[in-house]
């Protein structure tokens, strides 16, 4: 007789709520007239994310291995990541509300007659909101997935909507579509490796469950080529998602091409989901053979930190600069995974939140800096911005300081704690390269500050659009969190310290 699997709906609710919101959004897109559609979509998206966040808080102390048979593990570590994703996504969604970022009709070819007509008739598609909610649902599942199939499904659920929304930029349509296509091709390529890795691991252990893989490593010994090929290919899929060198090539192109609010959302939330999953897989399934895979990760972390920092030096485009900055940060975050300790996980959590809010805030400000044709990403035209809009320039400077790890910002505490964790676990090379890379990275952060504050504005200098209430609120939230976590880091550290459980 076939029994239906028991699902613990209470523990799965955050994912289900977001999925429900997404489905509702699809219906709204189909049945509500264009006068109210955008407003209703925003409300649905924000309410879904906020409710899911509240739900995560209410179940934050729960631990379960069998929330969905053996496929989802609910524990402190997973719930923290879910909470972080939802909090970041909520703020990121605030920047989506300036609807002139997105193509009037996504299906119209760039430059085609259909597109021109869509613009003329004032068409404004709002499918972006359900797509983002689908992506968020995938992200929520990714760090709590406990078997390789669920992981793969989550990976695809989060990736495919991202491929689409990358191509939705209203201006510079070709760049945007090119980025989407590149992201899709390379994403599919890396997903194939991920799936391939899963197959090897199944071949090794006869199971897709992370727990069984661990026990097989313990019982039959590690010396099996399928195991190592599995580890390598799984790593490729995950390292691609976080944008680590040499799997980073898509990052600058996609970050630049995607609509800027999407870039901020992607940069912050995808990293949380991917690092959450990475930490879980490598400690739960491969913790026993950490000495075998650690050199690979140390190497990747080192070239990621250094490569990202060095490549950013010659960039002239603010979004590309921030993309390389995010690559560098992926390297720093890898230090927390490599530490593979409780301190490593805590500092990873803190870092993801600190970095996430600064990133969303920074990209949020990029959406505001414009001229008559739209956003201006050429740094030379930001000269003297501080004289025109001191508030916006100061906020941007704060986010850059936090990226650079200047004390009294969240970024300093994050960097300090993650390097401490890496140092304590004996990975000194990472700390040395990390500190040097930070110094290099500081160069291009401060260069932007220099351009904004110490250059005289020219006729070419951009102006800052007056932000709507929701956008201002988003920037203020990011600003305050970056500052508060820099001054009272224990607010978050104490929480993170209580949420480090990972079920085996």
């Amino acid at each position, binding site marked *: 007789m076939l029994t239906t699997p028991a699902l613990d709906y209470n523990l799965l609710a955050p994912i289900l709520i977001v999925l429900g919101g997404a489905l509702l959004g699809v219906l709204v897109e189909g049945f509500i007239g264009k006068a109210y559609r955008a407003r209703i979509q925003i409300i649905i998206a924000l309410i879904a994310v906020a409710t899911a966040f509240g739900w995560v808080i209410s179940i934050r102390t729960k631990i379960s291995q069998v929330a969905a048979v053996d496929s989802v593990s609910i524990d402190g570590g997973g719930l923290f990541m879910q909470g972080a994703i939802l909090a970041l996504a909520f703020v990121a969604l605030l920047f989506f509300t300036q609807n002139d970022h997105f193509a009037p009709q996504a299906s119209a070819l760039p430059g085609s007659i259909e597109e021109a007509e869509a613009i003329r008739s004032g068409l404004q598609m709002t499918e972006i909101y359900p797509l983002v909610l689908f992506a968020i649902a995938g992200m929520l599942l990714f760090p709590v997935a406990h078997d390789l199939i669920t992981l793969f499904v989550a990976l695809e659920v989060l990736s495919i909507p991202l491929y689409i929304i990358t191509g939705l930029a209203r201006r510079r349509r070709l760049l945007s579509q090119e980025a989407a*296509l*590149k992201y899709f*091709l*390379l994403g599919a*390529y*890396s997903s194939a*490796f991920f799936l391939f890795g899963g197959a090897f691991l199944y071949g090794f252990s006869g199971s897709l469950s992370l727990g069984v893989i661990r026990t097989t490593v313990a019982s039959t010994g*590690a*010396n099996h080529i399928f195991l*190592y*090929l599995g*580890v*390598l*290919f799984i*790593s*490729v899929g995950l390292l*691609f998602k976080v944008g680590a*060198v*040499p*799997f980073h*090539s*898509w990052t*600058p*192109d996609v970050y630049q091409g995607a609509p800027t609010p999407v870039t901020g959302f992607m940069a912050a939330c995808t990293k949380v989901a991917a690092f959450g999953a990475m930490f879980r897989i490598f400690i739960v399934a491969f913790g026993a053979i950490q*000495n*075998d*895979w650690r*050199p*690979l990760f140390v*190497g*990747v972390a080192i070239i990621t930190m250094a*490569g990202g920092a*060095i*490549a*950013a*030096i*010659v960039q002239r485009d603010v979004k590309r600069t921030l993309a390389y900055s995010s690559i560098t940060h992926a390297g720093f975050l890898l230090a927390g995974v490599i530490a593979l300790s409780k301190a490593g996980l805590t500092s990873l959590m803190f870092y993801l939140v600190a970095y996430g809010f600064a990133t969303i805030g920074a990209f949020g400000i990029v959406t505001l800096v414009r001229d008559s044709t739209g956003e201006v990403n050429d740094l030379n035209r930001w000269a003297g911005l501080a004289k025109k809009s001191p508030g916006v320039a100061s906020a941007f400077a704060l986010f850059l300081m936090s990226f650079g790890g200047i004390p009294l910002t969240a970024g300093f505490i994050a960097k300090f704690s993650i390097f401490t964790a890496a140092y304590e676990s004996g990975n000194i090379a990472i700390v040395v390269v990390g500190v040097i890379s930070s110094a*290099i990275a500081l*160069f291009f952060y401060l260069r932007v500050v220099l351009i904004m504050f110490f250059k005289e504005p020219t006729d070419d200098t951009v102006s800052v659009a007056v932000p709507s209430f929701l956008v201002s609120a988003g920037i203020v939230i990011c600003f305050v969190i970056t500052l508060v976590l820099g001054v009272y880091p224990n607010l978050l550290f104490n929480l993170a310290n209580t949420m480090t459980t990972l079920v085996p």
Partner: protein
Amino acid sequence: MVYLIALPLLSAALLLVLGRIADKWGHLLATFISATTFAIGVAEFFSMHGQSGGNRAVTQKVFEWIAVGNLKVDASLLLDQLSICFVLLITGVGTLIHIYSIAYMEHDKDRRRFFAYLNLFIAAMLLLVLGDSYLNLYVGWEGVGLASYLLIGFWNQNPAYAVAAKKAFIANRVGDVGLSIAIMISFAQFGTVSFVGVKAGAAHASPVALSAIGAMLLLAAAGKSAQFPLQSWLGDAMAGPTPVSALIHAATMVTAGVYLITRSNFIFDASSTARILVVTVGVITLLFGAIVGTAKDDIKKALAASTMSQIGYMILATGLGPVGYAFAIMHLLTHGFFKAGMFLGAGSVMHGMEDEVNMRKYGGLARLMPITAVTFGLGYLAILGVPPFAGFYSKDKIIETAFNQGGGKGILLGGAALIGAGITAFYMTRVVVLTFSGARRWKDGAHPHESSILMWAPMVVLAIGSVASGFLLSFGSSLVNWLQPVVNASNAVGGKELMKPLVVSLLALVVVILGAGYAITKYRTVPDVAPEKVSLFTKAARKDLYQDDLNDALLVKPGKALTLGLVATDNYVIDGAVRLVGWVLSEISDVLRKIQNGYVRTYALIMLAGIFIGALIIWVVTA
């Protein structure tokens, strides 16, 4: 106890933050606060007086300040027999000078700021004497340095005054480095920087460490107290308003060095090397200051040289072992009265003479400014050590103790102190004669007049102190007994008695009469322009014995050369290295940019290469 510091600090902050709004009443608030601290000081004194000797010292923890590793420093205050003397002196004289300044600064549009700085000084100076550890003391030490800098340069619209403020600050920094090194050695040696901890540690510390700490503390004292070789700033510091000169650069801050050495008696008692350094510095400075004082025509600079010389006496006394500390403090207190009084007198004269400071342009002022003349005269008698005025009790004790060191050392130190007393009599008589008697040499436009009551009342109070304080402090050895628990001084004048106290006093009196008499005969007539044809000795004294030129040649010029060298090194070597690194990185960056060519096939290839390299790494690691 904490209010002693908190009140003037808050008042200073308030006056600075409020700005012009507080112009109308700022001076009144500051004076009221200063008087309140004096009242608290008096109350603390009587409550302490009611206790028995062992229970008089009180410690009060304010908050935990630093807790890093082994270093634990609380912000704690220590009020004991030594610090209460200073508290009373600082707040008492401070309050008088606040009152005096109300009138003196009446026409200055920045009077409120001046009073804010005065309150800041009071707070910092009280922290200096109340801190229970070297680190707490250091905060106050730096605070008074700051207040002194701000007040010397109060009229910084005059570039010369701003330079004087800078000079004082820099000379003080040299001393401050000494203090910070002393603190570091203490921490390295004893693991603590509190007075109690260092005292316990000093009992069994190596002589080298003790001598090093002692020498560094002496350097600090030399900076703050204008002792050789860091004395050059004090004369220039007279650029500040005269009440500042009276309070900071005569009565209180410049004596902080004496306090530091007395407070660190456990270091100096245990190290004879450090004591020798101390007496050497003291003797050199007391003669140096006295000689410089003989040639100055600027009344404030003459008094400043005198201050330097008198503090030399105090430093000398602190180097004479346990017995000397109490006499040093006694001279410090009596000096606080008579020197502050004389400075206020000088200020009163300047006030009446439209800020003229050249004594050759004074003369015959006694009739026109009788109160100033009398109060100044009483201070004059006190500094000369004429019995029964205050200086007689304190200075003669120092000379006596110096002689009692015995042997050649005793004769050398005692003799120098005695000669110093003679020179003191000469230059002080010169000041009095030039200013108050003789022919009137001022220009027709000047209308010398007595100052208002707000100015002369403080002078009268200080004059009473100049007359009576010596007797009161030494009657029944009251101060020596009072300080005994802090400095372990014995009652009697220590050492072998070389001469009877009476003989010493008579000798001192003879020397003083000789010096004063010579001055009176020499300055029967005074040319109102300083004569050019003078002895080499006078020329040297006029130029502060060439100390500035020496500093310039030994420190300033090599310092400038070093700075230029460092700038060049910075520009070419360090910046060159930085530029090279930057160039290399941006070249690499350029290469990386070319790899990022926008073709998906290239990206996929890079990923594939990465996978192969990754496989290789895992293979190598696991093989």
